[in-house]
């Protein structure tokens, strides 16, 4: 493989690690399946990391462990110097579906995490911040609109706000835009990049799209199935901010080809 592709890290600031996974494994006792084997991963402050791999490579298991939804069988999972032993306020999560609740207005949906953790009064106080977030994602004027009246892309923008309202240290993104059409998806990816930069966020994205991973990420974790493990961590040296035009550059193509090659190899194992 091309050495300059793998272990170069230009541009990305060598900031402090936010999330550290050491030797993490997960075995599902029920059918003795090794979903994850010896995963080592470090997310640095302000970085964007993607994980990509065929189905069964353990990426959703990895995400669930990182979200504190399931415990690992082995290994250390440390976020901001504290072990992750359950869901936490400093973990923000976003799913394939916007999952906005239709009986709540946009702003009520956004302050829901505050309502759950701190009660209704705190949620009311958080509204101001929710308005600011809606402004950031370009949904100003939609504060009191019910989700029924939002398009798919708008709903995902609102769910970005809901994720950001608790000011999480890490954003876990589970194929957030894969339910959108390709045009909206490209646009939302660029929006996501802008928001992450503005918020100085540390992001971790699970995706099926190599292009999406490359255009967004500083590092791409390529995973292999059976047992789920990291095959390689690819550093993306495209300059920031990224633009959709970069998808036609030779460098972009090289990185995409390289990752595709890795994934094809994984298929034959």
């Amino acid at each position: 493989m091309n050495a300059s592709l793998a272990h170069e890290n230009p541009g990305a600031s060598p900031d402090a690690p936010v999330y550290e996974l050491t030797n993490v494994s997960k075995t599902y006792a029920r059918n003795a399946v090794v979903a994850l084997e010896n995963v080592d991963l470090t997310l640095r402050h302000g970085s964007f990391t993607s994980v990509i791999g065929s189905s069964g490579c353990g990426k959703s298991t990895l995400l669930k462990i990182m979200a504190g939804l399931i415990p690992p069988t082995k290994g250390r999972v440390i976020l901001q110097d504290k072990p992750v032993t359950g869901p936490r306020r400093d973990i923000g999560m976003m799913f394939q579906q916007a999952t906005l609740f239709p009986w709540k207005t946009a702003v009520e949906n956004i302050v829901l995490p505050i309502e759950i953790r701190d009660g209704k009064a705190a949620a009311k106080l958080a509204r101001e911040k929710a308005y600011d977030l809606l402004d950031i994602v370009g949904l100003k004027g939609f504060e009191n609109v019910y989700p029924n009246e939002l398009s798919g892309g708008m709903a995902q923008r609102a769910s970005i706000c809901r994720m950001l309202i608790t000011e999480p240290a890490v954003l876990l993104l589970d194929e957030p835009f894969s339910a959108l059409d390709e045009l909206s998806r490209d646009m939302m990816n660029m929006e996501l990049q802008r928001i992450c930069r503005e918020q100085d966020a540390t992001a971790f994205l699970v995706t099926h799209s190599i292009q999406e991973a490359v255009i967004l990420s500083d590092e791409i974790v390529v995973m292999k199935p059976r047992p789920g493990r990291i095959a390689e961590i690819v550093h993306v040296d495209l300059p920031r901010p990224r633009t959709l035009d970069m998808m036609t550059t030779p460098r972009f193509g090289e990185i995409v080809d390289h990752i595709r090659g890795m994934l094809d190899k994984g298929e034959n194992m």
Partner: protein
Amino acid sequence: MTDAPTNQRLETGAADDTVWVQEVAFIDSVPRWIAMTFVFVVFIGTWDLVTRMGLVSPIILPTPWETFGDMIFVGNNLLSGDYMLVALWITVKEVIYGFALAIAIGFSLGVLVGETAFGEKAVMPYLVAIDTMPKVAFAPLFVAWLGFGIESKVALAAFIATFPIVVGTAAGLHSADENARMLFKTMGASRMQTLIKMKLPTGLPQIFTGLKIGAVGVMAGAITGEFLGGGKGFGELIRVAASQLNTPRVFSLILYLSLVGLVLYLIVQWTQRKVVFWQKESVGAHDN
């Protein structure tokens, strides 16, 4: 230009525009009220024809005009607050108490079954077993236990209406999707918070479906109870009229009774529209 529609099109649109009219079958374009009136007239006409030709004995099927005449009589009796209104009020009370009881029990059991593994494993099988029984057959038991008064009718009405509400509530609680559950977990929500802030509101459409089915059942339960357990309700009036072979009276009483059921159903539907305001499409088929 040979046919009229083509001429009209050319008159209204500019000559270059490709404006054309989509054909709609005549039967689909009839306004709702005309269509409804048409069906009503055909129904009454057939009824009239059958009785006029003497195809069935007048004791079995009265003419529509006899029935309408009797409806006016019963209507007058009800409006003047006579014995029929007293009987109707008894039945209405049975229906209201029965429905309230069914909602309380049905909802509680529904939450137990839908929310807890214990309820689903240990309680649901028994509920299913009881639900498959013909519940009307329990009427004599309720009469034996609770007497000939209003209580036995309330019990039977509630008994019949409880099960759809249990099923609706349990199904409603199960209807929250995986993403919503996961979202609430990541927000650190307690079980109670998840139930009240997410599962119950998500399940409201199914819960209301259960309530609507229950509303129909509660009426049937109250009347069956009156048929089998006496009392002074509307069911008793029907039973007496039938035993006197007063068929027009039976018909008109049933029609007034169906109004009570309809009102109850409409109240539930109206409440659903107010409470589940986000569910706009499927509350009523005729909603546009």
